[in-house]
């Protein structure tokens, strides 16, 4: 082999080296591109997943809002209906009391008729109390509202209730310092009704946990309430370890005359009055429950600040 015959060899090697270099560069570029695209794809996937999640969340919130709105309208319609019935019922009771009173005047005071007519009047007065409770649910009463320390208000209600609570029932209260604009008597009534219900649900044995906290105006928790405003709320969470309730009961729990108690043990007005009072305070109330595990009532009241 003479050098003249292999003069092309260095050119060939250089060309091969160049091709290899170009291939390596291309490979690096392709790998980089593939990685970038994979990253972009992953990011796009994540975005898509987030979007789906957001949409599902928005749909869920929308559904919850619709349910809450429907429930609010239903309760309002029932209030109007109950108010109308109460008006007519007051007239009927008034006629019963009036006529019976006159009949009673006409008979011998020592007679059985006189005594029995007295019982008719007593029964009509019981009806009158019931109508007053229906009206408390249906009408927007103009109660006087004062700035109240919510912790002290709850403590005062608990001190009223403690003597009536069975020995086997533990009452835990976890307060925070917060003020609301409200009516002390009405808020006592809310707690008394809820705690009495919890005691009944536990058959006297168990724990009632009352926890206060603060929900800030921008908290997404507020999105489920159609009437909630952009402001801070005081949250009262009342949890019991009772027998809980099913979905059907939960949906109707704030309706007037809805009761799960035995005939004669409850009027079915307690929780509808609680709902009415909370709404009068521009607040919100919801319930969650699991059969056999207990129920949790959450009350939100707008926080008061000077």
């Amino acid at each position: 082999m003479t050098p003249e015959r292999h003069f092309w060899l260095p050119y060939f090697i250089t060309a091969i080296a160049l091709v290899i270099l170009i291939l390596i560069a291309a490979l690096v570029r392709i790998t980089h591109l593939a990685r970038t695209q994979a990253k972009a794809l992953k990011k796009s996937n994540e975005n898509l997943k987030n979007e789906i999640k957001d949409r599902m969340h928005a749909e869920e919130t929308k559904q919850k809002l619709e349910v809450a709105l429907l429930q609010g309208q239903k309760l309002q319609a029932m209030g109007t209906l109950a108010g109308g019935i109460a008006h007519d019922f007051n007239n009927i009771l008034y006629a019963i009391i009036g006529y019976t009173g006159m009949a009673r005047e006409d008979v011998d005071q020592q007679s059985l008729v006189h005594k029995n007519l007295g019982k008719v009047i007593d029964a009509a007065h019981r009806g009158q109390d019931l109508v007053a409770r229906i009206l408390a649910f249906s009408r927007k009463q103009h109660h006087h509202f004062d700035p109240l320390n919510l912790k002290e208000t709850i403590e005062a209600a608990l001190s009223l209730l403690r003597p009536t609570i069975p020995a086997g029932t533990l009452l835990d209260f976890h307060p925070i310092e917060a003020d609301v604009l409200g009516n002390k008597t009405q808020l006592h009534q809310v707690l008394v009704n809820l705690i009495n219900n919890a005691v009944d649900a536990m058959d006297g044995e168990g724990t009632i946990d009352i926890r206060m906290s603060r929900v800030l105006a921008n908290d997404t928790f507020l999105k489920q309430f159609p009437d909630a405003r952009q402001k801070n709320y005081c949250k009262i969470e009342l949890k019991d370890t009772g027998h809980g309730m099913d979905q059907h009961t939960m949906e109707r729990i704030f309706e007037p005359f809805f009761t799960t108690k035995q005939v004669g043990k409850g009027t079915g007005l307690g929780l509808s009055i609680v709902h009415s009072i909370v709404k009068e305070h521009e607040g919100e109330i919801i319930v969650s429950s699991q059969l056999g595990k207990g129920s949790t009532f959450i009350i939100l009241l707008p926080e008061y600040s000077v």
Partner: protein
Amino acid sequence: MAKILLVEDDDLVRDMLTQVLQRADHEVTCASNGEEATECLRNETPDIMVTDIIMPKKSGITLISEVRTKHPNLDIIAISGGGRLDPSGYLDLSETLGASVSFEKPIDNTALLMAIDLLMHGQKVTDKAT
């Protein structure tokens, strides 16, 4: 004895109240709504008008405000079973418009008769009776 115009749309209540008032020796004229009451007042002026608030045709509130202008010396007792809105609100309004006293149904008839006696003797019944 007082001449009383009783305005009440519920037949049962109107009849019962008529008997209660007559038993206490009062002279009673009845009307079943505000329009009928206005008609009665054209012919005769009673000492006292006892009127329901929620009534068809002309409500007790309208009646009271009209009567107060045309018959400034007529004593008015407002009664209401409430319910459709806020009865205490209606009754407060009736007193603002010029009712001397107001009662929420079912009324204690003894208190109603007492209020009529006080008004007949020229005394003011200041406390709202419920």
